[in-house]
């Protein structure tokens, strides 16, 4: 469960999020939509505890993020998988090594890592790309590596920050379908996007932000360009 209560995040005089409140239940698939600068990425970074809210409280699985000490942030982040728009992959690591990294930081044993990475690469359709380096992959493949890394450790929550931002519609659709597949296993998926075609493709909950405020929260929402 992810709960925002009157969350405000300011950067100097700029207010990125303004008294935002919502609650996302376990196992939900939620799109956070809005134009550039609406506050979508800030919201994702707040959940990831990259930022601290200026005001208000954020609860993730009954834990108030404001109360998590610095030393425990790493432990908290291990429960969350993140997919980034710019992939954030190690350029000098292979596909296998990049995905394995999420398990290595958890201290998993090599044979367990090998098994899990193989399974997840199979799931995202990159089994044959395991020894490839990021520079040898297409944009869609890179995003699938990123997705594999986000889910390999079986986190409860998957955050995706504009995962289709650098992809064409067809590839973006594949990524979202993969996210939906992961969601069907009971994982909570929160995806920030401004891609209306992707949002309209799936009938899912949509939280719409504009200028840092929640302007709509629909159960089976659509994204209408203004």
């Amino acid at each position, binding site marked *: 469960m992810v709960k925002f209560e009157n969350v405000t995040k300011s950067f100097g005089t700029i207010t990125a999020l303004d008294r935002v409140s919502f609650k996302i239940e376990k196992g939900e698939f939620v799109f956070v939509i809005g134009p550039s600068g609406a506050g979508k990425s800030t919201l994702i970074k707040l959940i*990831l505890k*990259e930022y601290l809210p200026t005001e208000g409280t954020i609860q993730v699985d009954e834990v108030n993020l404001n109360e998590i000490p610095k*030393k425990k942030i*790493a*432990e*908290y*982040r*291990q*429960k*969350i998988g*993140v997919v980034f728009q710019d992939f*954030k*992959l*190690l350029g*000098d690591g292979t596909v296998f090594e990049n995905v394995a*990294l*999420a398990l*290595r*930081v*958890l201290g998993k044993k090599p044979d367990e890592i090998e098994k899990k990475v193989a399974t997840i690469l199979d799931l995202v359709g990159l089994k044959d790309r395991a020894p490839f380096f990021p520079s040898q992959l297409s944009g869609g493949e890179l995003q699938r590596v990123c997705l594999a*890394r986000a889910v390999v450790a079986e986190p409860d929550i998957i955050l995706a920050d504009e995962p289709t931002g650098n992809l064409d519609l067809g590839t973006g659709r594949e990524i979202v379908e993969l996210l939906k597949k992961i969601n069907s296993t009971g994982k909570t998926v929160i995806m920030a996007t401004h891609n209306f075609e992707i949002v309209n493709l799936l009938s899912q909950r949509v939280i719409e932000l504009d200028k840092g405020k929640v302007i709509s929260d629909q159960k089976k929402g659509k994204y209408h360009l203004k």
Partner: protein
Amino acid sequence: MKDHWRTTWTHMRRTPYQALAAILIMFLTFLISMVFVLTAGGFQIVLRYFETRPQVTAFLKDEATSSQVDAIKAKLAQTGKVKEVRYVSKEEALSIYREQNKNDPLLLEMVTANILPASLEVSTEGLTHLNEVAQILRDEQAVEEVIFQEDVVKTLDQWTKNIRRIGLGLMGFFGLVSILIILVIIGMKITLRKDEIEILQLLGASRWYIRVPFVLEGLFYGAVGAFLAWGIIYLLLLYLTSFILSFFQGISLLPVSPIFMLILLGTELIAGIVIGSLGSLLAVKRYLK
């Protein structure tokens, strides 16, 4: 830990010149340290050698009687400042002279026991007693002349002290330089790997998971630098043994005991590990907030 060592190795392989620079500076620090440790140790042995030699020699008049010699011995013993007194007769003096000049027959001709004086060779308990003992001997009627090696021993003592001081100063200075260089190199590596560190942090890697490879890197540089310095010094010692022995004839400076060298290796390795780890820990603390 295997995982961390693998990461450390990857870090070093990707920036080999920085790794080489770090190892070289550590090598230089330990090379200088070992040169000074061994030189100071050598001087200590030379000093001890001179301290154990008879430091005061009193040449006796030809008419000196054995009762006078015994009286002098007793007087010296009473002071409590004398370790040993040895009487060297004219005949013994001649055989010593012959031994010392055996390769020069010209010097051996015409010299008989009669022209060489008998003497008393005195070792004192400490260098501070030399003057006092020499004065007692000078006051004796049976004594013709007194000579003592005060200057040699004092100079050696001063040299040993100076070498120790300069050595400690240089060791401290280079130790500090090494720590700073490791700090800068590891700092640069942290900056270069900023993106990778950010990814690790976002994936939930603990602080220590991120820090350990950098600390291990500093530790590795220190240990390798220390080991190389030890190896080079040991080889040099073995190579120069015959030269050193011929230079310091009669003083058993070499060979250095292998156990001593192993203890030295252990100490250097520990110091290397401490210096390397300290430099990298400071870098990690400074650059990985």
